[in-house]
């Protein structure tokens, strides 16, 4: 009976390790490999921390189980051994984790700066955001500048509007201006590992470089109300020519006067 | 240990009970409940089983039926309140150059010197058996407005007759009808529109007269009554009305006026129409009914 608890505390970490090992094979892991340049770095940080934490976890659980086992297998009636603590041990297990944490925080500085510090954004994106993504309960309103002009903070005549679908160029660093109309939302594209909170009153530039053309899911990652769970949009990464053709179609649709039929199928 | 085991059992049994209640199955008649249940769909035939061929509108024309007519007056009984002008010439109101160019009386109660009440509707609610059907004349009915006043103030119309809305004012109006059974019309009328570009057609008979107003000049008011039979009339300035060729028999007339409390002066005025004769009908309108 007493051995049961030692075995119990050894068993679960082993199960956890096993599940972690088989997870990627069973598709219980990330939605896909990271498909943006930043995504690789973020995944790298994630794995670094995962490894550090796993080593610590296995080590401590093993020690716990060992202590229980020792307690369980000693004969009953044996005198207990009293300890008044060990100063040396306490120092060691304060300094070592401190170093580990400082190491982690220093390692991630670069990545954080690349994502958040405007000065470190790629040159090509800084001046020209592709679109303004305005989050609102419970949809994403997109405003593109008139083709051939730059996106301004305030709406301009000729700006193109759409909802819940963003077209951006792939393999080219791209930036969007993130805003919110009402409460806090978050711009989260899991397959790109991009996540940024949208804060009322702020215009937050978010940049990414998508590696593969295709469709990506944009989710809201900050609880914003009853519809938060279904606040999704599509990000369509296309070649720059494809994006520009889309914007031309959108412009034509937006200027529809009911008399001249749209030459291409309406933008859906 | 015991406490632990019993706790788990409690939770498990509670969970199982609630899960079983909430489950539904696709394709079956609606099972369980809640918003996600797939409903059963039962198809109904188009026509109801007891649908009669003759519906409430339109009566058969028979030349055999003996007809009579009625003529009468709506007389106010009791003291008539003094009616102030709705608009006095020169009043400072909206578009006063046009709307306050002349005096406009308050048409809610127009009583002649003899006490006859104008603009009272007297009509049969349903087409009587053996009555004539009504055909809409090809000529449209002209509904005009001048000095922010509708002309005429009241009218009985056959269904499907086109009403052409004209304007004799140099300001824009907008004609907004408030029917119960027909489709509402809310459309702008250009100034000095003598052609009458706006046309209104009432396709269904109404049970009571419907209001016609202008949203720009909210005091403008008129009443239209589309009927699917010809047995309806409005009293003239003297309070007189006449309806001809009514199939003989006892009929129940509605007497309706905009200033009466509840609008009905009489809900069911029984009148016996004798064949070949003209029945005199005196309708008393108690002043106590007035709600102005």
């Amino acid at each position: 009976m007493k051995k049961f608890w030692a075995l119990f505390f050894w068993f679960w970490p082993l199960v956890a390790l096993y599940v972690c090992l088989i997870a990627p094979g069973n598709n219980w892991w990330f939605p896909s490999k990271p498909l943006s340049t930043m995504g690789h770095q973020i995944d790298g940080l994630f794995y670094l921390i995962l490894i550090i934490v796993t080593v610590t976890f296995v080590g401590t659980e093993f020690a716990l189980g060992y202590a229980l086992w020792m307690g369980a297998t000693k004969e009953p009636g044996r005198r207990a051994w009293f300890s008044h603590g060990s100063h040396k041990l306490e120092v060691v297990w304060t300094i070592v984790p401190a170093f580990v944490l400082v190491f982690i925080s220093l390692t991630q500085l670069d990545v954080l700066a690349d994502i958040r510090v405007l000065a470190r954004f790629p040159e090509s994106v800084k001046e020209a955001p592709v679109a303004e993504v305005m989050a609102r309960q419970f949809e994403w309103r997109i405003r593109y500048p008139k083709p051939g002009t730059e996106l301004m903070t305030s709406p301009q005549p000729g700006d193109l509007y759409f909802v819940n679908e963003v077209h951006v160029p792939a393999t080219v660093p791209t930036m969007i201006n993130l805003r919110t109309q009402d409460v806090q939302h978050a711009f989260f594209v899991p397959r790109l590992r991009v996540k940024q909170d949208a804060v009322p009153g702020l215009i937050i530039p978010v940049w990414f470089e998508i590696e593969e053309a295709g469709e990506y899911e944009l989710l809201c990652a900050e609880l914003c109300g009853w519809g938060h769970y279904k606040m999704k949009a599509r990000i369509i990464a296309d070649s720059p020519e494809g994006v520009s053709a889309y914007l031309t179609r959108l412009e034509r649709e937006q200027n529809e006067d009911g008399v001249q039929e749209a030459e291409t199928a309406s933008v859906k | 240990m015991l406490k632990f085991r019993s706790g788990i059992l409690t939770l498990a049994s509670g969970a199982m009970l609630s899960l079983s209640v909430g489950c539904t199955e696709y394709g079956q008649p609606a099972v369980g409940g809640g918003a996600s249940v797939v409903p059963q769909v039962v198809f109904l035939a188009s026509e109801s089983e007891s649908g009669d061929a003759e519906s409430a509108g339109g009566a058969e024309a028979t030349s055999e039926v003996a007809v009579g007519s009625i003529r009468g007056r709506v007389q106010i009984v009791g003291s008539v309140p003094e009616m102030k002008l709705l608009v006095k010439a020169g009043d400072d109101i909206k578009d006063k150059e046009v709307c306050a160019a002349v005096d406009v009386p308050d048409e809610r109660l127009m009583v002649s010197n003899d006490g006859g009440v104008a603009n009272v509707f007297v009509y049969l609610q349903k087409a009587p058996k053996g009555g004539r059907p009504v055909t809409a004349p090809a000529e449209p009915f002209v509904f005009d407005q001048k000095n922010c006043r509708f002309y005429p103030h009241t009218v009985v119309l056959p269904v499907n007759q086109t009403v052409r809305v004209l304007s004799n004012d140099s300001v824009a109006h907008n004609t907004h009808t408030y029917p119960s059974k027909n489709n509402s019309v809310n459309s702008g009328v250009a100034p000095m529109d003598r052609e009458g570009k706006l046309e209104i057609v009432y396709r269904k008979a109404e049970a009571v007269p419907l209001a016609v107003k202008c949203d720009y000049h909210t005091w403008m008011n008129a009443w239209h009554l589309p009927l699917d039979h010809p047995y309806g009339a409005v009293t003239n300035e003297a309070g007189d009305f006449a309806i001809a060729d009514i199939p003989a028999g006892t009929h129940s007339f509605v007497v309706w006026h905009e200033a009466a409390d509840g609008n009905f002066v009489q809900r069911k005025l029984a009148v016996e129409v004798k064949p070949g004769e003209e029945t005199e009908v005196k309708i008393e309108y108690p002043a106590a009914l007035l709600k102005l």
Partner: protein
Amino acid sequence: MKSHVAWLKRAGIAGLLSIVVSGCSDNNSSFSISDRTRSLIPEAQTGVSEAPGVVKLLDEKFGDPQTLKAWSKLPVQWGGASAKVEVFAADGADAKVKFVAGEGQTFPEKATFVNVVTGAGAGRTLQLSSWDAATGEAVLTGLGGATLAAGDTCSIDGGAVIQSGRVLYMRHCSHCHGTAGDGNGPTAQYLYPRPRDYRHGVFKFTSTNDMSKVSREDLLRVLRYGIPGTYMPSFLLMKDEELTAIVEYVRFLSMRGEFERKLVNELASDYSEEAVESRLKDEQRADIVGELAKFLAEDVPGVVDGIGAELEESWVAADSDEAKIVPSVPRVPDSEESRRRGRELYLSKTLNCADCHGIDGAGNGPQTVAFEKNPITNVPYDEPGLHDVWDNLNQPRNLHTGIFRGGRRPIDLFCRIHAGIKGSRMPSFKNTPHEDIWHIVNYVLSIPFEPEPGATGVASAPAAPATEAAAPAAGE
């Protein structure tokens, strides 16, 4: 603690937990009954002896959310194909049947059930154990003694669209729009503007002319792109079939609401509580109820069919080409001149836009305080102003925000002006020359970008009589 007491305690806790999790009621939803229906006397609502009243008739023709009734008269795409029975041959407990597709209908590739519409088996759902779409031959099971005769109308896999529509509607729409589409779901009280009440059959943002109803295309458009400036979100990410199904269900709910409203209209003038109260001065209640019973038994079936025919006509017409607004001229190119002309028209006495929308387009014109009472009932409003047919206070649009609820395309604005906004106090200006409407559209699209409000074109509002003389020429 004694063990049987402990087990009783546990059973009690388990029971309590399950109730807390699943609720006490049977979880069935129901369609609400409108206030107008509730203003009738009880006999008119429920019926007198055998003759059904409004509530029963509604249930007969439309059902409840668990069992929907598909009244074939209504122009709703219930799903499935309508067909007639050609040959029926009983074969033990099953039956071999040959169907002929109805006019303009194609058989679905796969089908699992048949809804019988007319004939001895009307209202039943029979299972198809085999189905051949090419020939229309099938084997029916679950007959339970019912027989079908040649000429009986059936619907193959009938109701699939409306079923799916209902499930999706309850999941995505009912919390604001209500189970019956009455705009009074649980979240509705927190929203401004309020969610649409479908029961009038009126929808504001349409591309059809002022006398027509909303088309399917318009409803799909609203679902796809949402209504900016309101709480109606976009459902662009839903599949086309899902959106189509929801549109059909919304039309169904709208027709149900209209049916209720029209039926009550027939009864209200004589049998509402108010009317009966005034009639009691001259008549006995028993006589009134007797009259009502006669009316319900003899006349109402015809009325019901008449209402069905009206609904069929109006909703089918809404999708026709005649109903759609097509400008007679293409949009006048957007230019300084056109905008100036637009502003002139805006301020002119011909159109009176400034009366509601304000001299500078801020939505603060004098008409916004002109309506103190409901023009029909003369009951004073809680807040004076322009009210729509749902009794909500409408602010005329502030044109400076650049938010266009019905869409920002030039054709959308054209339709708003041409047909007005149905249900609201924005009237239709269908008799204005189309070129003039385009000038106004160009002006309105430019208002948000004016350097200062009212800066476009004419500096001062021409209210002097001089322009009135010019006004007749506007009818060009």
